[in-house]
């Protein structure tokens, strides 16, 4: 006991006096603005990613001075530019940038809208010379940031829930991810098919449909959280609430986007497609 006690006490202050900082202090740069309602934390994860990447680049500075690694760096940069050139040809990157032009105020408002769509007065997307305004300025515009983050958060949360039931293994995380991606693709394709069959004229692009399909992951995350914290009754209650709210959200948003004539018989098709996608998507992850 006696020989063990003094050495830790002596080594403690020496470790605290280590001069080289392990993490870059990002708190001063305002990396964490006010978070909105119940947001899965994107700003802290962004700042954590920035600090960890800067730690990774700060430490091996001596590593990059060797000739072999400079060759590797040159090859890597040429490969990156080659990939970037090809990517610009295939993906409409300019269009994609529009969908990620969000800020945290928009994220907060949109999340509140997704979970409480009942009191929102005006659902029309504001236009600016025939193109929709960026999501930063209009809460009704679709974006891809929330669906992407919600999708990844859902996968992680599903892994957590599997772990609490002792059903977790590293492969199952990949399985959940692949399955979620497959359901998403299936839903987007079924909505596209039903839109084509009903010949409704609309200015919805497939990316818009992907965004709307991804919004339901927010509801699924809330349902999963309720199920983890409150048990089976909480899971069902939260799930039915999120079903209802995403149903209303989708109908109110798409009602303005789908321009049809007076004949209302074509209304059922796409709405049924979307609703069945929501329902089936939620059922597909029913294992609590």
């Amino acid at each position, binding site marked *: 006991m006696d020989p063990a006690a003094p050495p830790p006490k002596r080594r403690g202050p020496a470790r605290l006096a280590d001069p080289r900082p392990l993490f870059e202090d990002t708190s001063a740069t305002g990396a964490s603005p006010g978070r909105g309602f119940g947001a899965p934390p994107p700003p802290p994860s962004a700042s954590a990613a920035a600090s960890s990447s800067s730690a990774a680049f700060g430490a091996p500075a001596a590593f990059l001075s060797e000739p072999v690694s400079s060759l590797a760096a040159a090859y890597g940069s040429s490969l990156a530019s080659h990939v970037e050139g090809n990517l610009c040809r295939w993906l409409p990157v300019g269009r994609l940038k529009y969908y990620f032009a969000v800020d945290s105020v928009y994220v907060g408002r949109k999340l509140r809208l997704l979970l409480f769509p009942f009191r929102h007065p005006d659902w029309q997307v504001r236009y600016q010379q025939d193109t929709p305004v960026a999501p930063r300025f209009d809460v009704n515009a679709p974006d891809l940031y929330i669906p992407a983050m919600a999708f990844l958060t859902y996968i992680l949360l599903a892994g957590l829930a599997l772990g609490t039931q002792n059903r977790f293994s590293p492969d199952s995380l990949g399985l959940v991810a692949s399955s979620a991606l497959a359901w998403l693709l299936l839903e987007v394709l079924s909505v596209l098919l039903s839109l*084509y*069959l*009903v*010949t409704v004229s609309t200015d919805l692009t497939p990316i818009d449909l992907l965004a709307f399909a991804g919004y339901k992951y927010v509801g699924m995350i809330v349902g999963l959280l309720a199920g983890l914290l409150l048990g089976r009754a909480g899971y069902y209650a939260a799930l039915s609430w999120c079903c209802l709210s995403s149903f209303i959200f989708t109908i109110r948003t798409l009602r303005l986007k789908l321009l049809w004539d007076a*004949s209302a018989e074509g209304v059922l098709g796409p709405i049924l497609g979307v609703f069945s996608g929501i329902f089936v998507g939620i059922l*597909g992850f029913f294992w609590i």
Partner: protein
Amino acid sequence: MAFTLYSLLQASLLIVNAVAVLHEERFLRHVGWGSDQGIGGFGEEPGIKAQLTNLIRSIRTVMRVPLIALNSITIVLLLLFG
């Protein structure tokens, strides 16, 4: 539910194969979905049946040649990797 991306690809390949193999004269004519049975006037809105008929016919026309390539690749890969 182990519904993976790979099973989605398999299912879509099988469905597209089924649509391509469909023989119009024998089956669709009975249902009234044949490609030469009047699809509707020129100025009207085509209904769902006409859209489906068009879709089936266009899938058959477009996907004939790529399906040959896709099927042979799938056969080779399944033979090699099970």
